[in-house]
C-alpha cells in the first residue's frame, strides 16, 4: 500500500490544489479526486526529522471512511456518556476522556494489526475499543462491575486486552514508554514481523525514562514506534511552559521522527503505516500527533482555567476529526446525510445498551479480592485487615 501511495501523487491533484481548491481556515484542502468509490485526498504536510516523509496524497474507499466515521463516532459517544455517568457519580475516581483525539486511535488501528502491540497511558478508553474491546466492557469497568475489562479491579486507567496485544492502561505518566520498548524487544526477539507502539503525551515527553527508552530502542534497532499524542497541555501546564523544545518529533535526536496532523484520520493512518514499515526495516521512529482534547485533563479538571473557551470551540469547528470525515464523504457524494445519521443512531444505541448492561451487572465480590496477586496461587494465606482474619489467595486456573 505504501508503494501505491508514493506513486499516486498525481500532478492533476497538485495542480488543482495550487489553483485554489477550497481550503479551511487552517489551510487544509479537502477531497480532491473521486474515482468510483475511492477518494484521493491531500492531507496536511508532515514535518520530518531525519527521514523522508511519506506522500501527502492518501486514498481511501467509501467503506473505509464509513468505518472510520462509525468508529470515531462510537468513541465520541462513549466518552460523552462517561462524562454524564461521572457527573451522576456512577463512575468515581479518575476518568480521563479521549474526545477530540479519536482520529489517532482509529487511524492507528487502520494501519496496524492485532499482532502489533500497543501500550498507552491512562487515557485509554478509546484505545481499548480500538484494540477489539467492546464499549460494554469499558463502561462496565468504569462503573466498577465484574463484567468490566479488568473485572472492576482496574478502573478507568487500567484496561488491557492480551489476546489483541493491548498492554494497557498505565497510571503513572511516562512509565509506559520503557514498557513499550520492551514490547518491541519482544517482537525483535521472536522475530514475528510486528511492531511495538508506545503512546504517551506531551506532558510525559519530559520524563527521563522516555529518553532512556529512545536510547535503547535506537541502539538495538528495536521495531518500536513512539507516538506522542500532543494535545498541547500537560494537565494545567501548556507545552510552551513545560518543554524547552516542543518539537516532540525531534526529541529522539538521532531517532527519526514525523509530525502528523492528529485530527485527520487519514494522515494518521498514512503516518503509522509508514512508521511500521520504517520500524521493521530500519529502526525505531517517533510520531508526534498534533491533536486536541475537548475535555479537561480528567473529570476533576474543568479544562477552562488554563485555556480559553474560544480556543476549544475553534478547534471543534475547524478541526474536529469526525466532522472532517463527514465532510469528505458528503462533499464527494459518497454518502448521504441520512446514511450517516443512521450510523450515529446505531452508535448511540450501542452505548446506551452498554450502560444498561453495566447498571444491571454485579459488583466484584470478595472472591476476586485476593485473586491474581500471584500467577501461581502459592496456596498463600494473606493476613486480613485484623490479625484474626485470613484470606486464601486462590490458585489461578488459566
Amino acid at each position, binding site marked *: 500500500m505504501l508503494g501505491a501511495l508514493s506513486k499516486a501523487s498525481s500532478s492533476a491533484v497538485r495542480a488543482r490544489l495550487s489553483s485554489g481548491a477550497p481550503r479551511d481556515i487552517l489551510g487544509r484542502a479537502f477531497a480532491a479526486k473521486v474515482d468510483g468509490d475511492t477518494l484521493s485526498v491531500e492531507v496536511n504536510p508532515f514535518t520530518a526529522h531525519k527521514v523522508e516523509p511519506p506522500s501527502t496524497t492518501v486514498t481511501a474507499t467509501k467503506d473505509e471512511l464509513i468505518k472510520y466515521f462509525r468508529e470515531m463516532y462510537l468513541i465520541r459517544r462513549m466518552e460523552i456518556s462517561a462524562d454524564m455517568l461521572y457527573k451522576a457519580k456512577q463512575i*468515581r*475516581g*479518575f476518568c480521563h476522556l479521549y474526545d477530540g483525539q479519536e482520529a489517532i486511535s482509529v487511524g492507528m488501528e487502520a494501519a496496524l494489526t492485532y499482532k502489533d502491540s500497543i501500550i498507552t497511558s491512562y487515557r485509554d478508553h478509546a484505545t481499548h475499543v480500538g484494540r477489539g474491546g467492546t464499549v460494554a466492557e469499558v463502561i462496565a*469497568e468504569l462503573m*466498577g*462491575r465484574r463484567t468490566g475489562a*479488568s473485572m*472492576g*479491579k*482496574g*478502573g*478507568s*486507567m*487500567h484496561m488491557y486486552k492480551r489476546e489483541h496485544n493491548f498492554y494497557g492502561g*498505565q*497510571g*503513572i*505518566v*511516562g*512509565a509506559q514508554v520503557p514498557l513499550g520498548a520492551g514490547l518491541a524487544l519482544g517482537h525483535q526477539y521472536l522475530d514475528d514481523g510486528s511492531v511495538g507502539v508506545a503512546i504517551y503525551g506531551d*506532558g*510525559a515527553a*519530559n*520524563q*527521563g*525514562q522516555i529518553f532512556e527508552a529512545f536510547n535503547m530502542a535506537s541502539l538495538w534497532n528495536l521495531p518500536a514506534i513512539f507516538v506522542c499524542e500532543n494535545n498541547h497541555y*500537560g*494537565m*494545567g*501546564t501548556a507545552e510552551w*511552559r*513545560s*518543554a524547552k523544545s516542543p518539537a516532540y518529533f525531534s526529541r529522539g535526536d538521532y531517532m527519526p521522527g514525523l509530525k502528523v496532523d492528529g485530527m485527520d484520520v487519514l494522515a494518521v493512518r498514512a503516518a503509522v503505516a509508514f512508521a511500521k514499515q520504517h520500524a521493521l526495516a530500519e529502526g525505531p521512529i517517533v510520531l508526534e500527533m498534533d491533536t486536541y482534547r475537548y475535555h479537561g485533563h480528567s473529570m*476533576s479538571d474543568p479544562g477552562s*482555567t*488554563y485555556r480559553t473557551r474560544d480556543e476549544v470551540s475553534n478547534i471543534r469547528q475547524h478541526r474536529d476529526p469526525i466532522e472532517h470525515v463527514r465532510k469528505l464523504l458528503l462533499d464527494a457524494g459518497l454518502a448521504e446525510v441520512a446514511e450517516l445519521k443512521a450510523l450515529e443512531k446505531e452508535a448511540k444505541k450501542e452505548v446506551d445498551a452498554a450502560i444498561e448492561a453495566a447498571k444491571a451487572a454485579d*459488583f*466484584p*465480590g*470478595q472472591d*476476586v*479480592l*485476593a485473586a491474581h*496477586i500471584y500467577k501461581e496461587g502459592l496456596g498463600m494465606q*494473606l*493476613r*486480613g*485487615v*485484623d*490479625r*484474626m482474619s485470613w*484470606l486464601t489467595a486462590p490458585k489461578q486456573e488459566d
Partner: protein
Amino acid sequence: MYFSKVMSGCVDLRGPRAGAPPASYDPLPPIWTHPDPQSVTRAGPGPLNRASTRTAAAKKELMMWESLREALDEEMERDPTVCLMGEDVGHYGGSYKVSYGLHKKYGDMRLLDTPICENGFMGMGVGAAMTGLRPIVEGMNMGFLLLAFNQISNNCGMLHYTSGGQFKVPMVIRGPGGVGRQLGAEHSQRLESYFQSIPGVQLVAVSTAKNAKALLKAAIRSDNPIIFFEHVLLYNVKGEVEGPEYTQCLERAEIVREGTDVSIFCYSRMRYVVMQAVKQLEKEGYNPEVVDLISLKPFDMQTISRSVKKTRRAIIVEECMKTGGIGASLSAVIHESLFNDLDHEVVRLSSQDVPTAYAYELEAATIVQPEKVVAAVHRVVGAPAGVAYA
C-alpha cells in the same frame, strides 16, 4: 529509629507556649526542638520579632487545604529562600489548591511549575537545598514519588551524613497519599512504609487543619529533610487554626483522647476512623486512649511508652499494608521495649496486602473500617470496666 530519652544538648528555646502539648501532659522537654525564630538570623523581610502577635494569635476555622496554604504563604513571606516546586503548583494553583493564588504574590521563580519529571525535579530540589534555598517539593500524589526514590533516599537522606556534616538538605517533600475514593491501585499508595527505612529523613503525617498548618511551618523551618504526608481525603476537613507564629513539634505525638483501657495508635485518616469507632466504644462503656502518632519517623517514644504503661494494651490502626508498614515497625518497637508493661500482645490493624482495587466494595474491604477497630478493642480489653460483657 526512636529515642527513649532526651538527647543531651537539646533545650526547648521556644518556651512552653508555642506548640505545647495538652495541659494534662507530663511536661518533659521534647526530644528535639526548633531554634526560636529570634535566635536565628535569617536575611529577608518580615519581622522576626513576633512576640507581640503571639498572645493575640488569631483563631479561625479553615479547611486543611486552606490551612496548608496559609502556612505556605506565611513562611514564604517570612523567609525569601522558601520556594515551592512541583507540577501545576503555580499558575494552576495546585491540584488540591494548596498553592492557590500564591504565584500572583510570589512570582514564577518561587512557585515553580515543573515539567512532569519527578526524578528530575526532586534531584533539582536537593541541589537547590544544598546551595542554601529551602525548597518544598510537591508530589502531585505521593505515589508518583516512587520515581524519585533514588533522589530521596541517596541524596536527600544521606548527603548530610556522607559529606561529614558539610551539607544540609532543609527541604520538605510533601503531597497527598493514602487511599482515596476509587482512585485505582497506582494512585492509592502509602509511601510511608517505603520511606521509613531511609536514614536521615523525618516522616510526619498530618491529620487536622490545625496540626497541618503548625507542622508545615515547623517542617519548613527545620534544617532536616522532612517527608510530609497529607491525605487525599482530608483536604476538606475543617478545623481551628492558630496564628502565624504557632508551630508544632515535629517529633511529638498528639493525644486525641485520654483514656485508661487501651492505647490506640493511629495517624492521618485513620485518626478519624478510630474516633468514629470510639463513639461506639464510649456507648459500650470503654475508655480508650487515642494517640495520633504525627511523627512516623522517629516515633515519639516518650508519649507512646507513657500511654502503654498506663493502659497496658496497645492497638495500632494504620492504612499501610500489613507487611512492612509503619505499624510493623511500631509493633516491634513496643514489644521489644515495653514487653513487661504489656498485658496483651500488640494488635495491628492494617490494610491487606493487595493492590487497591477500583471497585468500591473491594477497596473498602482492603482498608481498616471502624467496625474492625471496635472488634479489636473488644478482643484486647475484654469486658469494659464495670459493665457485663455483652
